[in-house]
């Protein structure tokens, strides 16, 4: 069905968070932490807006809206609303509402709470844009915006070195992946000629048949895997837990890290189904699932445990998406929804415990149920969903995914099912540990006197965890309204769905058996939790190296490599720079002619008038004077003679503006060069050795010869007069000016000039800075009059 075009309201809904980001700091200054209430209205309204799409989208209708952005480059700000983007938009705005409230309570009294709200809203807008954008380039821009805002949020507590490191790490990994994604998108755009996701989806075979499937696949995967923290890029996500908890709950569990999964799901119809897709994705997804859960068991910090299970869940999602099979995809969509709800809630619970009890180490927590009853109930509900127990949405998801992996995949069925089983069992262990350890058992003395947090803190966990229950109880409706349309987008075809909470049959229901095995295994492992943790810690210690350490080595490697390059190229001697620059110029202008053997023929000597010969003579005399000058000052002034002669030539051949400028530039260069000379305390004479002079002379002659040949070659081409005709014709009529040069500068090509004057200002600032860097104040006014030393010394002094 072709997408229906809707009005711009949806576009503004995407942009609304950016407006909120501007308002937030002012509102926070005025209302303090209570600003969370009015601010939460923004995502709540967005949520309501997108619930309006549920009805038509579940009937198979899709929508687009577009606004021109840079039409010359086929960049539009356009949205595409279908099942997948509606689900994501509702998750982002819905969970976002509670995150804003939670942030109000969590950072109460923080001096930069306004800034925090601002960053959160910026992220929210970026994420909305990412999941709704239709145009590939604008999708990429929002994709990178999420990386940047996540950088700001992880590094929010920027006074701590660990935060800064985590922020940079996340930016490097996800930003780097984003560049791969851009390359992939550009390849898609070039090979298919389609710039919109919706156009791409109408023709599922277009990329597979283009012959560039492999590079596109790898590049898109590079973006998705880094963003969604797939092994071996998983390390940045647990480190991102340095961020304040609202950020972890929002970005690093419910939304941003799902961007990669979103992209894979979105592109599944066009990229999926191939052998490559169904091999690579399950392997990496499965590996990530196992690595994530195993590392999670090892942790004792509540947030880190949850973070590693997030990695694991993302692995599970990628694995299921990689099967390209309808039933497994259904499991993926269900699990996506379930995970966002329970993981968001659990992170907020962990944050509340940290906030109220002063620690998140489960070995130092216990017996909080009496002090924090509401949080305890929310934690239990969310954990039951995470553990995959009925009657929660997590249970349905697990049933469906077992059903999908076991029953329908031939080769991959068994390994994927076993992977999922182990992963889910370990997930249950973590869920139990997170929900039970801090709350049950004897009361443990905590750093703070624990008590229930304010409503701002428990509103989110309660609503999200209850939703996990509620959506499961009305499973059939959930299936029809949320899951089926999403599944239709992911699988690329309309799907009939019959979702139910309780298994309809027992005998021969493998999924149910597998669930029972999972639960049994999980409970067994939970009783062995401490032993398991020690075992994993011992194994990891034996391995010793991990990608996290690898990242540090990688960064250190880059830094030492670039410093090596810099020291090689930047010797600190002006002569070397100039010599290299000119030598390369000479090669650049001479080499092409030499290789193609196409040097221009020498033209016949034209018939010059006597005064023209005179001017040429002056120029040549000036040059000779430069060469034989005894002192530098004489040489500089003699160079001016040659310059003025050139200006005269311009004048005679009808370029008064050029000549005028040349006069001024010559004058100023002589003045400035003379000033520089006196300032640098140069010795008046040039005392270089013969060999140096010969080398310089050789390079100079080569450059001169090369430029002369280039000019000859250019002038021997037939003259294309279209531009001059255009400017002559329109200079007067459109731009009201007779001086074509000036009209071009300030009108026709004014934009170039704007750039140039910006460069002039910047260059001026740089020169000023260089001059202002004073040499040591105790340096004697009169430098020693030796030959080479003062020059080098003065230059390094200036450069400092």
């Amino acid at each position: 069905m072709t997408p229906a075009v809707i009005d711009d309201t949806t576009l503004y809904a995407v942009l609304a968070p950016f407006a909120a980001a501007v308002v937030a700091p002012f509102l926070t200054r005025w209302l303090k932490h209570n600003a969370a209430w009015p601010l939460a209205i923004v995502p709540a309204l967005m949520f309501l807006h997108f619930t309006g799409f549920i009805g038509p989208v579940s009937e198979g209708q899709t929508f687009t809206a577009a606004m021109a952005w840079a039409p010359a480059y086929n960049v539009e700000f356009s949205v595409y609303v279908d099942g997948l983007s509606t689900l994501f938009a509702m998750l982002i705005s819905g969970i976002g509402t509670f995150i804003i409230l939670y942030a109000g309570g969590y950072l109460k009294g923080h001096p930069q709470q306004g800034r925090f709200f601002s960053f959160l809203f910026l992220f929210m807008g970026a994420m909305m844009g990412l999941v709704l954008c239709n145009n590939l380039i604008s999708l990429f821009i929002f994709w990178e915006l999420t990386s940047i805002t996540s950088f700001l949020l992880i590094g929010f507590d920027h006074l701590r070195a660990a935060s800064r490191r985590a922020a940079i790490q996340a930016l490097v990994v996800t930003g780097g992946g984003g560049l791969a994604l851009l390359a992939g998108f550009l390849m898609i755009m070039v090979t298919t000629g389609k710039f919109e996701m919706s156009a791409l989806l109408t023709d599922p075979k277009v990329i597979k048949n283009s012959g560039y499937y492999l590079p596109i696949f790898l590049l898109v995967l590079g973006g998705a895997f880094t963003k969604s923290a797939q092994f071996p890029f998983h390390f940045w996500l647990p480190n991102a837990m340095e961020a304040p908890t609202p950020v972890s709950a929002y970005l690093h569990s419910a939304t941003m890290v799902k961007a990669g999964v979103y992209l894979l799901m979105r592109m599944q119809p066009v990229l999926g189904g191939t052998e490559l897709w169904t091999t690579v994705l399950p392997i990496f997804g499965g590996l990530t699932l196992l690595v994530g859960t195993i590392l999670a068991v090892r942790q004792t910090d509540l947030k880190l445990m949850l973070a590693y299970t997030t990695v694991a869940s993302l692995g599970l999602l990628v694995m299921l998406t990689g099967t390209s099979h309808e039933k497994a995809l259904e499991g993926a969509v269900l699990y996506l929804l379930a995970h966002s709800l329970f993981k968001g809630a659990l992170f907020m619970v962990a944050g509340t415990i940290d906030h109220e009890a002063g620690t998140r180490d489960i070995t130092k927590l216990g017996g909080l149920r009496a002090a924090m009853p509401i949080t305890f109930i929310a934690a239990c509900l969310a954990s039951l969903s995470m553990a995959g127990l009925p009657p929660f949405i997590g249970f349905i998801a697990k049933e469906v995914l077992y059903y999908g992996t076991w029953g329908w995949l031939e080769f991959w069925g068994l390994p994927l099912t076993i992977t999922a089983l182990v992963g889910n069992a370990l997930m249950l262990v973590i869920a139990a540990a997170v929900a039970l350890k801090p709350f049950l058992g004897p009361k443990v003395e905590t750093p703070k006197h624990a008590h229930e947090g304010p409503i701002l803190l428990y509103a989110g966990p309660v609503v999200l965890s209850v939703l996990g229950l509620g959506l499961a109880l009305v499973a059939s409706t959930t299936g029809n309204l949320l899951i089926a349309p999403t599944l239709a987008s992911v699988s690329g075809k309309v799907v009939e769905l019959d979702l139910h909470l309780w298994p309809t049959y027992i005998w021969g229901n493998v999924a149910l058996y597998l669930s029972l095995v999972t639960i049994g295994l999980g409970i067994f492992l939970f009783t062995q939790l401490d032993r398991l943790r020690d075992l994993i810690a011992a194994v990891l210690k034996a391995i010793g190296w991990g990608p996290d350490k690898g990242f540090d080595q990688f960064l250190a490697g880059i830094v030492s490599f670039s410093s090596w390059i810099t020291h090689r190229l930047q010797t600190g001697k002006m002569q070397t720079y100039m010599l290299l620059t000119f030598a390369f110029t000479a090669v650049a202008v001479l080499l092409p002619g030499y290789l193609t053997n196409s040097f221009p023929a020498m033209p016949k000597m034209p018939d010059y008038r006597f005064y023209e010969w005179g001017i040429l003579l002056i120029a040549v005399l000036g040059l000779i004077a430069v060469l034989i000058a005894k002192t530098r000052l004489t040489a500089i002034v003699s160079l001016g003679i040659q310059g003025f002669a050139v200006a005269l030539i311009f004048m005679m051949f009808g370029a008064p503006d050029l000549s005028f400028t040349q006069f001024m530039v010559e004058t100023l260069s002589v003045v400035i060069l003379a000033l520089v000379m006196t300032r640098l305390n140069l010795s008046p004479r040039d005392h270089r050795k013969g060999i140096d002079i010969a080398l310089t002379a050789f390079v100079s002659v080569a450059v001169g010869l090369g430029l002369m040949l280039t000019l000859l070659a250019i002038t021997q081409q037939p003259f294309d007069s279209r531009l001059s005709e255009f400017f002559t014709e329109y200079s007067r009529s459109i731009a009201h000016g007779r001086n074509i040069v000036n009209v071009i500068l300030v009108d026709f090509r004014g934009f170039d000039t704007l750039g140039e004057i910006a460069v002039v200002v910047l260059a001026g600032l740089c020169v000023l800075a260089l001059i202002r860097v004073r040499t040591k104040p105790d340096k004697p006014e009169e430098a020693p009059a030796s030959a080479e030393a003062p020059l080098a010394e003065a230059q390094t002094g200036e450069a400092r």
Partner: protein
Amino acid sequence: MRTIIFRTIAPYLAALMVLFSIFVLLRGHNEPGGGFIGGLIAASALAIFGIACGVASVRRAMVFHPMGVAGFGLFIGALAGILSFFTSQPFMTSQWLIFHIQDVEIALSTPLIFDIGVYLVVVGAIGSIALALEERESD
């Protein structure tokens, strides 16, 4: 460099050069000239004045820091481009305001504002480099 003749003449010369530079700037749209050349002339005026009478007196005479002048030039250059937004035209579309005082046609336009911006940038940037280089001599 500081002969009595040079020091006496330099202020008048510099003033004349600045005046001439403004003339060159304004005639630029129809005759040879324009903001860039005008700016170069004015910058040389500053350099000459500086050599003759010391950088301090140039700075006093200029009131603003030359780099500030350059920055202001860039600002009004960009501003001239934005004016076209008010007529819903793309960035830097030129806007013209032509009116007659008796028989003289006066044409005001955004390219002229832009050219003044170029002029100020060049005076400011080149001028501040020249002055900064001269400064050491005077102290």
